[in-house]
């Protein structure tokens, strides 16, 4: 069988092109390329070379329209045994080609050419060229010579008659009958041959005439084989004759005649010699010729039938090469028809036939044929997909292009054709290995392993791994295959910039250029984000020239062998990325997430980021699972690096501790920092007491490499109850980071380069450095409770009045200060007593493992800023209290200095105006301010008390007890702060006896049996005139009233009861009386008054409910020490 047969084959003149002498390979190819295309040579163009020696047998040669068809057989071919049967099988001409520079001796060339030509006995014309036969006239000359030779042959055949035999005849035993029959047949065969030559000469009409005769004769002699041959020739003649004419009946005629051809070839089948030679190949060729002639989509059913029956014949073909040619042709025809799966099926049959030959060339052919099938079986190599993508589109002209597309979408695992796919890939691998093509072998093994590993046994996987390794050893280093093998590479994530080097967009129009660029709240979705999708920020990634970037990828090895990745790195097609390759070992059935890093080297947008992975394959350029953000590379930015001086560990503070920390900022970038701003974020922002804004501003611009140290004052906050619970288990346990504040430092380099003003609008971004203050709060000294204590030590009645409390505030300061300085103890003036002196007792506990020392101080007058802030002298210092670990202690704070001098109605606004809300409009401004004054004074009082501590670790801080004191004072604030409406004092009056200096009696004592004149002073602390009824009583130690009654031991003069006194506002009224003590001893004088017509303020102060209730004021007891003898 011959490849590439068609009906027109019968009319083609075969010309062998033979190289003569030494010709370089490439030159030979060039020579061949001249002859490559066989084209018809019009008869009209050869007429100049044609000389009619005698009357041409081709009587109806169409000189105007006819043509000769050349078919060049490059390199020649051995003679066919069927030459006599079909003249077109003969090599009718030989063209020798030699290369002049390498073959200078023309004689030897001619000698060699003559020798070669001997092998082509059938050649009628021989020519040898030593130059380019570029002139088409040479071909015309050959054509003319051939035409003349055909004429000669026809004359010869007509006159003498040649014996024409085929291999079929040779086998027949020559009985006498058969000899006779052969003689009869000879004529018909001669006519058939003449017809063939007419056809070759381009004269279909002549050919047809001879064929008709031949058919007639062959039918008579039952020479079926030649009958079929003649019929075949006549069909060719018919087609050539009808060329250019649109005859719809022609196709039917051709089909009808061809069916007859096939039938007669079948008939010519002789059983005896079927083992050795058979006309089957002609029958199959006829099938193929018809199929090729009809090959159109509309006739697919007929063609399929023809080709299927041709394929059926394959079994009976004796020669394996014939079978190969048959399958090749069937595959080609199916392919032309658009039946790619059928074509692939027969291509695979071809490949199997090649593989049976078991040599390298056949294996290469098998590999090439299998490569054609990969598309139909969806196992293409990546390289072929990218090369043939346009072909795919063109090839899918058939109606089910959508279907094809869908099929390619479905993954291999789902497609259960996987068995076919694996078989095909295995065959490709096998043929590639035999053909010695390591790249193809690698590619096939990679596809097989990557796509079908779940279906391959561990043994098979190991085999494939070996195949991969063997192939890669034989490949030159650096070869890349477009088909990835293992491991699977999957993009895991693009890590955002760490908070240390965050990039923020810069808004040059604003002073706070960073505003709005970063999420400002804890909310993932912010309604103010200009309606843009929230994840838009994720899709944008900014890389900076010269700063390393990282990408996390996951590598997976699902197979049962150990996989060593020699090198995997990031690469960018534009090449402006310096990668850091890494190598990694993947154990069987494992996956690892690895970080790939690199340094961008130039500014621009990065596209087509991909991973180059091991085994010399290129990983997935399309990353499926994760969206690749738009990566833009920007010029270098400054980079601030921070660390806390003294270690970056947690800053451990006790509650309330105040400490300075130093944060060092260094510019690690290559661009100076020109703008910088510090702000706070996170929780507990108030724990940062001071931020050195100015220090930072003063060092700008911060040159690359420069460093600045910023002091920051911290005050530890109070642990909440939850935190306490958390921390209760382990002391010193680090609390959640979220509770610590962070310093946000926004900084940026210079604005734009001045070089390119058009780009001035593009401002290089700034950066944000987050310095988390990693504060760990330990539970420190804790406040347990506070309560007020009162102490009642009566005053002594003396000659001088004790200094009123309020006087101390202004006048007595200096003296008190000196006293405070001396020992800081609470001093009680005996004559004044401590009536009304309150103590605030604070109970503190120390749950820590160190000793705490408490230093309690009370600022004397915090309203006087100059004194209280500027001088320690303004404070009452108390001795330090030491609290051991796991102990508690009480600290007592005297509150004697806090009485207000005036009882003002405004303090009770709340009380006596229950419908305040309604009247609030009317309440005067002064009232409001007065109320605020009270509140302020309470706060003032509280703020004056400071509990400072110092821990055994050397840290110090302040205990926040404001709330506790407030709570303690809440119930008795009025009692503590507000003065009584009336205060009483007793005083001894010396009757113009000025012997005080030499009086031997103890000062302030009273002699018995003497008239002792006394005064009671009633001070009105309110703003209104108070009228009252004053009474004075005197009691002895037993508490008996010793002024009245039968056993009175004290006599008196003056009025003691029911003294009506009117005390003007804020003034004292005096009432004198005299007492005469009969018995020495201790007596107590008490003054009391019933206020008449008390106003609301007084009532409120006395906390009386009903307006009728008398307001009773009682002064503190005064002691009188009476000396003398009874």
């Amino acid at each position: 069988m011959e490849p590439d047969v068609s009906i027109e084959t019968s009319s083609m003149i075969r010309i062998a092109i033979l190289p003569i002498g030494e010709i370089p390979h490439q030159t030979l190819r060039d020579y061949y390329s001249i002859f490559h295309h066989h084209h018809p040579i019009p008869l009209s163009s050869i007429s100049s070379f044609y000389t009619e020696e005698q009357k041409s047998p081709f009587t109806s040669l169409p000189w105007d329209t006819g043509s000769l068809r050349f078919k060049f057989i490059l390199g020649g071919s051995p003679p066919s045994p069927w030459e006599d049967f079909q003249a077109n099988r003969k090599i009718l001409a030989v063209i020798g080609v030699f290369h002049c520079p390498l073959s200078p001796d023309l004689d030897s060339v001619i000698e060699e050419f003559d020798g070669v030509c001997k092998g082509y006995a059938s050649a009628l014309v021989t020519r040898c060229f030593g130059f380019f036969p570029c002139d088409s006239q040479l071909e015309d000359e050959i054509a003319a010579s051939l035409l003349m030779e055909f004429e000669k042959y026809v004359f010869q055949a007509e006159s003498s008659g040649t014996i024409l035999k085929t291999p079929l005849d040779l086998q027949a035993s020559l009985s006498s009958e058969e000899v006779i029959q052969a003689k009869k047949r000879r004529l018909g065969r001669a006519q058939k041959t003449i017809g063939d030559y007419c056809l070759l000469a381009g004269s279909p009409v002549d050919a047809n005439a001879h064929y008709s005769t031949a058919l007639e004769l062959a039918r008579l002699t039952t020479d079926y084989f030649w009958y079929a041959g003649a019929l075949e020739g006549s069909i060719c003649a018919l087609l050539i004759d009808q060329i250019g004419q649109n005859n719809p009946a022609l196709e039917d005629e051709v089909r009808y005649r061809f069916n007859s051809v096939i039938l007669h070839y079948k008939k010519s089948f002789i059983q005896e010699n079927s083992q050795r030679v058979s006309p089957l190949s002609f029958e199959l060729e006829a099938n193929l010729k018809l199929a090729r002639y009809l090959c159109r989509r509309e006739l697919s059913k007929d063609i399929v039938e023809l080709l299927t029956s041709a394929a059926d014949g394959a079994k009976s073909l004796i020669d394996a090469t014939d079978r190969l040619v048959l399958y090749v042709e069937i595959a080609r025809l199916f392919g032309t028809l658009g039946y790619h799966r059928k074509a692939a099926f027969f291509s695979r049959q071809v490949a199997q036939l090649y593989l049976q030959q078991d040599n390298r060339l056949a294996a290469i052919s098998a590999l090439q044929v299998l490569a054609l099938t990969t598309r139909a079986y969806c196992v293409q190599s990546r390289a072929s997909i990218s090369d043939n993508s346009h072909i795919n589109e063109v090839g899918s002209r058939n109606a089910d292009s959508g279907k094809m597309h869908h099929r390619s979408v479905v993954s291999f695992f789902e497609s259960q054709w996987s068995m076919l796919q694996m078989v095909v890939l295995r065959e490709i691998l096998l043929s590639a290995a035999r053909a010695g093509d390591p790249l193809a072998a690698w590619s096939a093994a990679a596809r097989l392993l990557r796509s079908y590993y779940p279906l391959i046994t561990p043994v098979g996987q190991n085999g494939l791994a070996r195949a991969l390794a063997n192939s890669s050893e034989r490949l030159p280093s650096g070869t890349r295959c477009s088909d990835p093998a293992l491991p699977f590479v999957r993009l895991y994530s693009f890590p955002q910039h760490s908070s240390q080097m965050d990039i923020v967009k810069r808004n040059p129009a604003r002073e706070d250029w960073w505003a709005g660029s970063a999420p400002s709240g804890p909310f993932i979705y912010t309604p103010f984000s200009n309606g843009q999708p929230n994840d838009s920020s994720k899709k944008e990634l900014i890389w900076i020239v010269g700063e390393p970037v990282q990408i996390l990828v996951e590598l997976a090895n699902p197979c049962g062998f150990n996989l060593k990745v020699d090198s995997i790195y990031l690469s960018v097609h534009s090449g402006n990325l310096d990668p850091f390759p890494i190598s990694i070992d993947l154990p069987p059935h494992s996956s690892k997430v690895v970080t790939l890093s690199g340094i961008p080297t130039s500014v621009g947008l990065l596209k087509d980021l991909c991973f180059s992975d091991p085994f010399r394959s290129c990983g997935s350029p399309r990353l499926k699972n994760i969206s690749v953000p738009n990566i833009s590379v920007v010029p270098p930015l400054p980079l601030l690096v921070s660390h806390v001086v003294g270690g970056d560990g947690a800053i451990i503070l006790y509650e309330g501790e105040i400490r300075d920390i130093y944060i060092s900022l260094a510019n690690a970038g290559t661009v100076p920092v020109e703008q910088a701003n510090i702000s706070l974020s996170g929780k507990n922002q108030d724990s940062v007491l001071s931020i050195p804004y100015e220090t930072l501003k003063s060092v700008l611009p911060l040159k690359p490499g420069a460093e600045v140290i910023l002091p920051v004052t911290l005050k530890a906050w109070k642990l909440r109850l939850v935190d306490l619970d958390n921390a209760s288990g382990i002391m010193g346990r680090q609390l959640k980071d979220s509770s610590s504040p962070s310093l946000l430092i926004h900084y940026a380099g210079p604005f734009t380069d001045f070089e390119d003003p058009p780009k001035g609008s593009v401002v290089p971004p700034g950066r944000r450095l987050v310095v988390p203050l990693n504060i760990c709060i330990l539970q420190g000294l804790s406040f347990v409770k506070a309560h007020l204590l009162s102490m009642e030590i009566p005053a002594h009645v003396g000659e001088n009045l004790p200094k009123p409390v309020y006087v101390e505030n202004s006048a007595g300061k200096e003296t008190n200060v000196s006293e405070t300085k001396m020992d800081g103890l609470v001093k009680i003036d005996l004559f004044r007593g401590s009536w009304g002196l309150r103590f605030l007792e604070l109970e503190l506990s120390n749950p820590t493992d160190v000793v705490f020392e408490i230093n309690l101080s009370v600022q004397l007058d915090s309203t006087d800023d100059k004194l209280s802030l500027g001088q320690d002298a303004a404070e009452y210092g108390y001795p330090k209290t030491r609290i051991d670990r796991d102990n508690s202690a009480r600290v007592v704070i005297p509150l004697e200095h806090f009485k207000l001098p005036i009882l003002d109605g405004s303090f009770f606004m709340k009380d006596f105006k229950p419908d305040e809300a309604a009247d609030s409009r009317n309440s005067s401004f002064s009232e409001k301010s007065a109320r605020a004054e009270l509140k302020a004074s309470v706060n003032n009082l509280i703020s004056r008390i400071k509990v400072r501590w110092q821990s055994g670790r050397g840290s110090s801080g302040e205990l926040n007890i404001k709330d506790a004191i407030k709570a303690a004072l809440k119930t008795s604030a009025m009692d503590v702060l507000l003065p009584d409406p009336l205060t009483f004092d007793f005083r001894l009056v010396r009757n113009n006896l000025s012997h005080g200096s030499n009086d031997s009696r103890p000062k302030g004592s009273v002699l018995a049996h003497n008239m002792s004149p006394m005064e009671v002073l009633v001070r009105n602390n309110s703003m209104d005139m108070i009228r009252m009824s004053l009474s004075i009583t005197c009691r002895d130690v037993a508490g008996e009233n010793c002024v009245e009654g039968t056993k009175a031991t004290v006599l008196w003069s003056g009025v003691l009861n029911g003294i009506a006194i009117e005390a003007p506002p804020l003034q004292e009224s005096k009432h004198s009386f005299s007492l005469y003590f009969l018995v020495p001893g201790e007596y107590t004088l008490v003054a009391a008054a019933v206020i008449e017509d008390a106003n609301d303020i007084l009532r409120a102060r006395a906390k009386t409910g009903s307006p009728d209730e008398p307001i009773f004021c009682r002064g503190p007891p005064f002691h009188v020490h009476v000396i003398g003898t009874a």
Partner: protein
Amino acid sequence: MATTACFIIVSRNDIPIYETDAGSATKREDASQMHQFILHAALDIVQDLAWTTSAMYLKAIDRFNDMVVSVYVTAGHTRFMLLHDSRNDDGIKSFFQEVHELYIKILLNPLYLPGSRITSSHFDTKVRALARKYL
């Protein structure tokens, strides 16, 4: 009873969703591979042929060597393909029709996604029983 028979259901997306060896003879591995190749190639012919007739049963549409491919195309263009080496048209037609009923029952299952692989063991048992009965 066919000595060699392979039954396969191909979805409209040209993906096999069910396959079974309906034949009784035990087969070698390369033979079953060959069956798949033949059936796969026959899809090209079915694709054109299905539109030329209104009948669902397309009879024997393709052959290779001794093996014949008979095809039945449902209205949803799901193809039942039987590879066999004996000619028993009536039996094959009945087989296809009954399998079609079974297939419709599978399609009626709300949990079955059309075009996905048929994994029902009940279906498998029934199809094998039908193959024994008719082929």
